[in-house]
C-alpha cells in the first residue's frame, strides 16, 4: 500500500507561499510526474511527502495512515534529491548501500543489490570511487542507485535525470519504468523534460505558483489542457495563442478569424477568448496534407527558421509590423509551426497556413479556463473535461 494523499497542504516560508492549499491523491502503484515552472513548489511538495518539511497547514497520508508528523524514516519512502547530496565521506558503494546497512541487511544481500543498482545506472566498476572523483552525471546516477536499492512504498525522485545525456536518459527512463512495474511502487517524479513526463507517467500533475493546475493522464493534459497555463506549459514548442473575441459566427482577432457556432460551446458574442493551437496542428496550405476539418487559409510570412534535425521550426509573423519574439513563441502576433525536416522553406517568404479545427482550443481569456478543445466535436453539453484544477478522484 503506497498511496499518497495531500489534503489542503500549504507551506509558507517567511514571505513566500511555496505550496498553496494542495490536494492530490496518488494511487498505490501509480507513477505521477510533477511538472511546473522553476520555483513552483515541486520540490517542496516532495519534501513534505518525505517528511523533511513540515506543512504549515494540511495533512499528508501515506498508505492510508496520516504521517504528517511522522519522521521520514517511518514513512517508507526513498528519495532522489534534486541537489544529489551524496555523502562526501563515503565511496560509491557505501553511498548506495547506506539505506540497506541501516536496516542491517546481510552483506551478501547488500552486495547483490548494490551490484544490481550499479548495473542499472551503468556505474559498474566505479564502486570504490569517492564522490569528488566523479563527473556530474555519475554523481547523479549514484544518487539514483542509492534510492533504488531500497524497496520502499513510495519513490520520490526530484529531477533524477537532469544531468544525464539523452541516450542515458532514455536508458534510465526504461529502467525506472521497469523498476516501477516490478516493485509496484508508487512513484512521484519531478521532471522538466516533457518527453519523460509524457512517456513515463500514469498521470501528470501540473503545478504553478504552488497551486495544482491539473492532474490527468499525459495525453489528456496535452490534448485537453485545463487552462491556458497548462496549455502553454505542456508541449514543446509551446501551443500558439491568439487573443480575440467571440463574434456571432466564431472567433475574430486582429490577425485571423475562425468560424464556428458560439452557442455550441457555451460562449456568446463579445466574450474575450483566446484561441490555442499547437505547432503540429498548423499546416502550410500547400503541403497537400489532407486534414479532415481545416480552417480557412491564414496569410503569414516566415521569419526565423530553426532546423532541429528531425523537424524544422518556422516562426510565422501574422503582422508585417513586428519582429519575431523568440522568447515568447506564443505571442499573439506570431505562430510557430513545425514541418518535416526535408521541407524547403526560406526566411521572409509568404506562406499561407491552415489550422486543424479538430485541434483548436478555446480559453476564457480572463480566467484562463479551457472552454473547448476541438471546434469539431459538437455539443456544448460535453463541456471541457478536466477543467478542475483539483483532483477529481476523491
Amino acid at each position, binding site marked *: *500500500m*503506497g498511496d499518497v494523499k495531500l489534503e489542503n497542504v500549504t507551506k509558507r516560508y517567511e514571505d513566500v507561499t511555496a505550496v498553496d492549499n494542495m490536494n492530490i491523491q496518488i494511487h*498505490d*502503484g501509480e507513477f505521477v510526474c510533477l511538472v511546473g515552472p522553476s520555483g513552483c513548489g515541486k520540490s517542496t511538495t516532495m519534501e513534505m511527502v518525505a517528511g523533511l518539511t513540515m506543512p504549515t497547514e494540511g495533512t499528508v497520508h501515506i498508505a492510508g495512515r496520516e504521517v504528517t508528523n*511522522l*519522521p521520514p524514516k*517511518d514513512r*517508507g519512502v526513498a528519495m532522489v534529491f*534534486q*541537489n*544529489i*547530496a*551524496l555523502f*562526501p565521506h563515503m565511496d560509491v558503494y557505501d553511498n548506495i548501500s547506506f539505506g540497506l546497512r541501516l*536496516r*542491517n*541487511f*546481510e552483506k551478501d*544481500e547488500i552486495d547483490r543489490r548494490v551490484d544490481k543498482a550499479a548495473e542499472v545506472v551503468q556505474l559498474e566498476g566505479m564502486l570504490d570511487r569517492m*564522490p*569528488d572523483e566523479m563527473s*556530474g552525471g555519475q*554523481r547523479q546516477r549514484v544518487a539514483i542507485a542509492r534510492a533504488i536499492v*531500497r*524497496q*520502499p*512504498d513510495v519513490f520520490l525522485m526530484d529531477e533524477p535525470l537532469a544531468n544525464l545525456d539523452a541516450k542515458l536518459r532514455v536508458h534510465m527512463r526504461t529502467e525506472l519504468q521497469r523498476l516501477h512495474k*516490478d*516493485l*509496484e*511502487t508508487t512513484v512521484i517524479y519531478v521532471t522538466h523534460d516533457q518527453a519523460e513526463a509524457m512517456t513515463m507517467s500514469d498521470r501528470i500533475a501540473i503545478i504553478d505558483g504552488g497551486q495544482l493546475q491539473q492532474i490527468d493522464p499525459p495525453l489528456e493534459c496535452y490534448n485537453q489542457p485545463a487552462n491556458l497555463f497548462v496549455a502553454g506549459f505542456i508541449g514543446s514548442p509551446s501551443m500558439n495563442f491568439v487573443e480575440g473575441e467571440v463574434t456571432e459566427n466564431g472567433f475574430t482577432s486582429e490577425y485571423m478569424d475562425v468560424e464556428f457556432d458560439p452557442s455550441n460551446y457555451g460562449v456568446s458574442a463579445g466574450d474575450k477568448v483566446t484561441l490555442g493551437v499547437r505547432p503540429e496542428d498548423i499546416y502550410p496550405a500547400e503541403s497537400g496534407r489532407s486534414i479532415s476539418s481545416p480552417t480557412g487559409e491564414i496569410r503569414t510570412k516566415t521569419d526565423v527558421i530553426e532546423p532541429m534535425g528531425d523537424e524544422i521550426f518556422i516562426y510565422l509573423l501574422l503582422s508585417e509590423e513586428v519582429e519575431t519574439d523568440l522568447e515568447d513563441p506564443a505571442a499573439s502576433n506570431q505562430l510557430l509551426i513545425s514541418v518535416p525536416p526535408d521541407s524547403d522553406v526560406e526566411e521572409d517568404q509568404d506562406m499561407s497556413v491552415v489550422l486543424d479545427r479538430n485541434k483548436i482550443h478555446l480559453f476564457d481569456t480572463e480566467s484562463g479556463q479551457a472552454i473547448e478543445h476541438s471546434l469539431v466535436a459538437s455539443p456544448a453539453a460535453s463541456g471541457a473535461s478536466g477543467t478542475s484544477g483539483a483532483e477529481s478522484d476523491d
Partner: protein
Amino acid sequence: MASEGGTATRSSDSDSQGGYEGWVQSSIQNPDRAYRAAFYVVMIFFLVTTLFPLYWLFILAVTPNNMISNMGLLPKGFNPGAFVEVFTTLPFHWYMFNSFILALITTVIVLILASLAGYVFGRFDFKGRGALMLLILAISYFPPAAFLLPLFRLFTGNIEILGLSSPMLYNTPGALFLPFSALSLPLAIFILTTFYAQIPDGLEDAARVEGTTRLGALFRVIVPLSAPGVATAAVLTFIWVYNEFFFSFLMVDGQAKNWAPIVWGILGYQGQYSASYNLMAAAGLIGVLPIAILVVIAQEKIVSGLTAGALKE
C-alpha cells in the same frame, strides 16, 4: 506487494509487527518524547556541573574575606563591595585592558598566519607538507619553560646577530604577543586546516573563475564558509591569551603600565602569606565578563549549515 519490510533478510525490526496498534503508535511517538526528556536531563546535568564551581566562586566573592572559613552552600554575610574593592585595591581594569589588547593583537596575528598556513595545509598537496605540519605540531610538545631562557635573553637585548643586539622588548607588548602568537599558532593552524579542507573545491573554483586570486578566494569564500572553525579558533586563541599564565608572568614586571596582563592583577590580591580570596574571586568573575560577551558575539558566527544550498553534488 513488495515493501521493504517484507524482505526476508531484514533483521527483525519493530514496526512491521501488526497487532499492537496502540503499542506501535506509542513506540513511534514515545522515543521522541523520551529523547526530548533525556535531552533536557542531560542539558541540566551539564549546566549544573559547569555552573556549580562558578556559583562557589560567587559565594567566595560576596563573603567578606575574613568570613571565608567553614563555608556551606550559601554565602556567609553578603558583601558585594568586593566587586568595587577589586578596582580600588589595584588598577584591575587596566590589567583587563592589557589582556584584552594583547589577546586582540595575538588573535589577529594568529588568525592571519594560521589562515594562510591552514589554507595550504588543508587544500594543497605539496612536497614537505607532512614534515612541516609535524614540525609545527612538535613545537607544542614542549613545556613553555623550554622556551623561556633563550626568549628572555632575546627580548632583553642579550642576543647579538651580526653585531646588532636584539631589541629590548621586556616590559613591552611585543614580549608577550610574540610568544603568545607563536605558541597558539599550532592549534589554530590545525583547526583551520581541518575546516578549510572541508570546504568543497567547487566554491573555491567559482570564486577563482569570478576573478579572485587564490588568496582572494581564501579570504572571500573559504574563511567565511569556515566561520564556525574560524570563530572557534579565534575564541580559543583569545581566551587562551587572555588568561595565559606563563609568559604573562615572566615577560613583564607586573606593572599595569608595562602591559602586565590579568594574571598579575589576580595574583595582586595575594600576599606572601595572606590572600584576599574574596577579591580574587570577584576579580575572576569580573575578568570573565569580556570573554562571556565575546562568546555571545562569536557564537553568532557559529551558525549551522553554512554550506547549505551551495552545491549540487
